[in-house]
Each structure stands twice: as C-alpha cells, then as structure tokens.
C-alpha cells in the first residue's frame, strides 16, 4: 500500500514538475538606460523589444512557454551596467542578455556574459570595438545586430568623397565610446582616402550649452559638421547651431527625427548627407507594417532604436525557437546559424565576428525634407 502511494506521489510530482517546466517563462534580461540623459532611447528600446516579445507570445511563445523580458536600468553608465547584469546573471534565470544600448555599457557587459556563458545580443551600441572583440578568437557569447560605426562611416565617407565633400569635416561629439567611435570611424574612413578630419572636439555627456564649441567650429569654416550628440544633447546642439547661424551642412549620424520641425523646414540643414541604420520612411512592405503596428501601440512612430531593438529581439526569439530547450549554450549555437529576413531587405546572418551586415541608409536633406539617397550594405 505504502509503495503504491509512493509511486502515485512520484508520478504526480513528476507530472507537476514537467508541467511547471513547460509553463515557466523564458526570461531575457535587458540592461538599458531607463533614467539619465539617454533614457528616451531606453524607452524606445523597451517599446521595440516588448512589441517583438508580445508578437512572439501571441504566436504561442516558444514550445508553449511564454517569453518575458526583464529590464534593469544602467543609466548609460558602464558601472551601472555591470551592476545590473551581474545581479541578473547571479540568479541564473536568464536565457540571454539584451543590449546595454550605450557602447560603453555594452563593452562592460561583454566579459560578464562570456564568463557566465550566456548569450549577449546587442541591438543599438555601435562601437566598432564590440565586433572586433567578438566571435572567432574573441568573445564567442556576444552577438551584434546593428552595424558598427566604422562600417557605416566607411559607406558615408565613400559617398561624400564621390561628391567631393569629404575634404573638410569638423567633428563635435560626446566624450563617450559613441562619440569616440564616431570620430575614430571618420578618421579611419578618411585616412583610407588620404584625408583627415579638419578638427575634432568632445563634450561631456549631458552638457547643455554648446555655444563655445559651435563658435569655434564656425570660425574654422569647415565644409561639413559631424554632430555626434544624442537625445537632449543633440536637440540643444542643433538648436544652438541654428540660432548661431551655423550655415554649414551636417554629416555623420544626424538624428533627423530630433531636429525641430521649424529648423528642418527652414532649409537650414539642406545639403546634409548622413547615414543611419534605419529610417522610418524606408519603403518596404515589412517596414510599413512595422511602423503601423508600433505607432498604433505606442502612439508614436518608431525610431532607429525601436527598430533595432525589435529586429534584434526577433532574431533572438528565432534562435530560441530553433535551439530546442532554449538553454544559453544552445541559443548561442542557434544564433550562429541565423538566417533572418530584415525589414530593410537583406537576409541577415552573423559573420565570423558575430556581426550582422544589414543595409545602411544614406540620406540627404533637400528643401527641408529628408530624401533617401540610397542604401549601402555595411
């Protein structure tokens, strides 16, 4: 009798355990700036990735298991990023780690993911050194979906050179890995063509007044200005450039969606030629549908960050599906075999540096409007 009871108990507990496993969610840990100077971008990273998770769950999740994404704040600060990811990895409940958003934060997370043997997938951080340190001979657990600064700037400088506009470029960027990678990317791409930056200067992140730096740039009379500032810093920079009568077109990664409408419409930055991994106006059916879904859900159109986060999480979920049990090592193996149809057209695969080569969009501003000049594979 006792052995019968034991057998039934064992059978029931086995059933409950397997049901619980089948029903336990697969959790992705995300470290992104939810507060601090670029938290607006963190918000879009969250929106884009949550939309991808929601859509995947609506299709049944992964073998019946729901997907969850747990966001921790890193304030775009490497120390905070290390703290948030260390805490996440200590719990051992995360199947993968997502993003960091800022290059400095992503670079700080990379060794943690490698030590814990958990895939770390990057959507937004653009520093070239991330790809240089990943894949063969490097960090096998880090995967980068967005293009590097170097690859985008090489495409841009090639374009500018063809039009005879690469001879005199002044650079003003934030003093972070993002800004430094921007100037480094320009210098490398220009050096390949026997040219160099006319000047480069760096401001502290979160600075509000750029009048001194812009006065200096204006006095040097460069042909183009590369402004590597983001979010509120970019808005302040572009507004001050306008009120100072800058009158020099912009280049580099110009955040057109953050240029005040009045400045854009005035034609002040006409002649600007820029490169971005994404533009909301890209004319593909998949992108149009994405823009509609995103705008309907969040009452705001997607931006670069939301697009990159959406596609990156979709790639991760695709790898989780193919991995079988969604364990970290199998997800990593599945990621290396990714074939994912991007909204921008190309079929995405990771190269031997675990880097994807999507299209970059070269665009210009003419008559106060954004005009896509072409796409260039990064």
């Amino acid at each position, binding site marked *: 009798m006792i052995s019968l009871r034991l057998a039934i108990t064992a059978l029931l507990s086995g059933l409950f355990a397997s049901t619980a496993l089948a029903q336990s969610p697969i959790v992705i840990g995300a470290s992104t700036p939810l*507060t*601090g*100077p670029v*938290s*607006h971008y*963190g*918000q879009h990273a969250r929106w884009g990735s949550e939309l991808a998770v929601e859509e995947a769950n609506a299709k049944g999740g992964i073998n019946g298991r729901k997907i969850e994404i747990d966001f921790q704040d890193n304030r775009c600060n490497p120390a905070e990023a290390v703290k948030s990811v260390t805490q996440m990895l200590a719990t051992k409940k995360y199947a993968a780690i997502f993003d960091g958003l800022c290059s400095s934060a992503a670079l700080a997370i990379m060794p943690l993911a490698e030590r814990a043997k958990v895939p770390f997938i990057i959507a937004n951080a653009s520093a070239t050194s991330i790809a240089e340190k990943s894949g063969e001979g490097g960090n096998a657990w880090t995967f980068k979906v967005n293009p590097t600064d170097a690859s985008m700037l090489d495409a841009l400088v090639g374009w500018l050179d063809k039009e005879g506009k690469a001879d005199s470029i002044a650079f*003003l960027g934030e*003093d972070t890995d993002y800004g430094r990678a921007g100037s480094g990317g320009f210098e490398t791409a220009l050096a390949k063509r026997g040219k160099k930056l006319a000047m480069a*200067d*760096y*401001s*502290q992140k*979160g*600075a*509000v*007044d750029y*009048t*001194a*730096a812009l*006065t*200096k740039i204006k*006095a040097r009379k460069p042909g183009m200005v590369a402004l590597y500032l983001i*979010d*509120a810093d970019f*808005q*302040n920079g572009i*507004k001050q450039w*306008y*009120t*100072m*009568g800058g009158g020099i077109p912009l280049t580099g990664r110009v955040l057109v969606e*953050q240029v*005040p*409408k*009045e*400045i854009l419409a*005035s034609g002040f930055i006409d002649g600007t030629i820029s490169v971005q991994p994404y533009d909301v106006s890209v004319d593909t059916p998949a992108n149009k549908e994405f823009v509609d879904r995103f705008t309907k859900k969040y009452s705001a159109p997607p931006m670069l960050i939301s697009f990159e986060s959406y596609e990156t999480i979709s790639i991760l979920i695709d790898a989780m599906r193919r991995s079988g049990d969604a364990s970290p090592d199998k997800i990593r193996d599945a990621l290396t075999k990714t074939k994912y149809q991007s909204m921008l057209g190309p079929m995405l695969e990771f190269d031997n540096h675990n880097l994807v080569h999507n299209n970059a969009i070269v665009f210009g501003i003419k008559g106060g409007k954004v005009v896509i000049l072409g796409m260039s594979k990064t």
Partner: protein
Amino acid sequence: MDLSFYAQLLLNGIVIGVIYALVAMGLSLIFGVLEIVNFAHGEFYMLASMLAYFLTAHWSFDYWTTIVVVTAVGLAVGYVLFEGLLLALRGEAFERSILLTMGLSMVLQNGAVFLFTTTPRMIETPLSYQNVQLGEVRLPVARLYALILGVAAFAALYLILHHTRLGKAMRGVAQNRAAAMMVGIDTRVVSRLAVAIGIGLSGLAGAALAPIYSVHPLMGFAFVFKAFAIIIIGGLGNVSGAAIAAVMLGVIESFAGGLLPLAMTDAVAFIAMIAVLLLRPQGLFGRGVRV
C-alpha cells in the same frame, strides 16, 4: 581668428554666466538665510521649465505671461515648501536638511519621469529661433531676454536686500538668527520669504531658459551642479558674490571652450572652485556676512 570670434565668445560667456546666476542666486539666498543647501533646487528649475513648456506649447501662453505665471507659481511653491517641509528642520542638524532636500530631489525627479516620461521637449515658437545680429556676432533673442531677466532679477534682489526693511531683516537673520529674534524680527516670516524668493528665482530661470534648452525631467542636474561651484566661489550665502562669480565663470568657460578642447570647460569651473577653497576659503566675496 578675427575679432568677431572673441566678441562672440565674450557675449556667449556673459549670457551663460547670467543664466548660471539666475539659478545660483536662489540657491545662495536660501543657504544664506536658512543655512540649508537645497539639493532639490535643480528639480524646481526643471519643474518650472516643464510648466513653461506646457503653458506655451499646449495653452499658447506668450513668453511674458509664461514668465509671470511660472515665477508666481515658483513663489507659491517656495512658500508651501517652507511651511510644509523646511520649517520642520528648524534648529535641527545640517545633515538632516541635506537628506531631506536630496530625498525631495529624487521624489520630484522620478515623479516627473513617471508623469512626463524622459522624452526631451522643445518649445518651438518664433522666439526660439530669432536672433539679433551685430556684424558677425549673433545673440539669439531668447538668450537676450534671459540676459535682461537675469540682470533685472539681480537688481531687484539687490534692492530688496539692501534698501528695504525686509532685506535688512533677511540679512539680520542670516548674520545671527538668535540676535535677530531678540530684536523682534519674525524669523519664520523672513525665512519663508527667503525660500519663496529662492524658489521663485528658480521658477524664473526655468521659464526664461525653457525656450533656449531642451526640457526634460533630468535637466536640473546640469545647472545646479555648476551653481554649487558658483556659490562656493562667490562666498556661501552671498547673493551678490554668487552673481558676480557666475558671470566670471561663464566668461572663463566660454573662452576655455573656444580656445581649448571642450572637455576643459568643466575642469576650469572646478579648478577655480578648488583654488578658491585653498586660497580664500570664505569665497571670493565672502566677508563672513551672508546675503
């Protein structure tokens, strides 16, 4: 570099200095009278900018009406702040005031993030984009107005402090609270007014600067951090000293940013602060007498 380059740097420096002064004067006044370092000062400035943004962008208030309304709201908030929170600190340890104002700062900042999100906003009125031009030198109209308002606020505060009974009472409380009480000064009324004026000044700063800088819940930090350096350089609690130090710092920073790598500008402010602390611990204009 031609003369217009240096003239532009000088003008930029004076304007940014007056902008610093707008924020620093209120901070200095509150410290002078109450001996409280208001770590939430930046958040009051941020909330004022937010209010200015909503008044202008959503209710189509004009510039001057916005200035008046936001400053008046600032005065009222200062009154409530004193009666509701700071009064409870009377006679208590300095450390408690730091903890209280830091806590208040966090509550206000995160409350604003919750209510308004961190999306940066810009006031887009014609005023935001107009400028006055003299040869090659340009001054945006919004900055010109901020300059005028800053100078007017300083002049008004100076007159109040030095030529009215109320001002004398404030200076009396600042110099010796016990003695001021013994001669019949109502220190509660004087302190309340000092806080109201201090927060009113941050309201004025927020409204005046909203058309110039991007408005978002985390904007308070940038200026207030600098304002702390300014009130130390000017002499803790010395409002005139803070104003003069602010303009000096603005000009020095502008020339440093124009002639040296930009990263040096903040270093200049804090090197100046350290130098003053070493050579003249009471500040450049500190005479042991506050306000």
